[in-house]
């Protein structure tokens, strides 16, 4: 598990997972899209509490390796300001066969999105901004 404020490079990350025993590679990427719940998004800010995000992310990956017969798995998440189209999170999994690569990749991204202390603040074209999923804890954040 890695947190980075620099650009995520899926091609380089993929290369690090190559393995003669691997027959399947599944990757997931989360991209910044221009619209969320009907609001036009200008850019996005990820606040990451790294000490816990890295430990908990590594727990998630270890769980995936335990649950599914995969070969390798990695996850990288961005922090800081991101523009539309940028890659916010990448997950890559290799295995002998594709069933387990799909299942493990899905498991990792689902758990990472729910368990890691990572918050997303959207800046809208209309001028205001807000922490996603956190309406009642930051009502002053306009």
């Amino acid at each position, binding site marked *: 598990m890695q947190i980075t404020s620099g650009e995520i490079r899926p091609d380089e990350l993929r290369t690090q997972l190559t393995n003669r025993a691997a027959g399947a590679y599944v990757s997931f990427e989360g991209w910044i899209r221009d619209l969320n719940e009907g609001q036009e998004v200008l850019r996005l800010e990820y606040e990451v*509490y790294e000490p*816990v995000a890295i*430990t908990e992310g590594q727990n998630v990956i270890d769980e995936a390796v335990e649950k599914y017969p995969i070969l390798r798995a990695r996850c990288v998440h961005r922090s800081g300001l991101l523009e539309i189209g940028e890659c916010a999170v990448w997950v890559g999994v290799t295995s002998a066969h594709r069933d387990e690569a799909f299942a493990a990749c899905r498991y990792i991204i689902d758990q990472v*999105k729910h368990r*890691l202390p990572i*918050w997303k603040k959207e800046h809208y074209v209309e001028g205001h901004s807000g*922490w*996603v999923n956190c309406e009642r*804890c*930051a009502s002053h954040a306009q």
Partner: protein
Amino acid sequence: MSKRVTIRYFAGFRENAGTGEEVLDIDVSNAGDVFRALQHRHGSSEPLGHCKVAINDEMADWDSVVRDGDTVLLFPPVAGG
């Protein structure tokens, strides 16, 4: 019995509290007590069930015991989706 506890706020909680960290002497036994005390202090209405907590950089439960000198990290709901 009062304990000296460092509280750290993140994202919306930090903006709501107007600070990222404060040290308080409070009468609490577990993490849930800390959450409720701070909710009252800062007027946040985010339900505890949507939030998470860590103690000294380890993920914890709301009934995890808080000891004197601990750092309690209050995590508002994450982006999810």
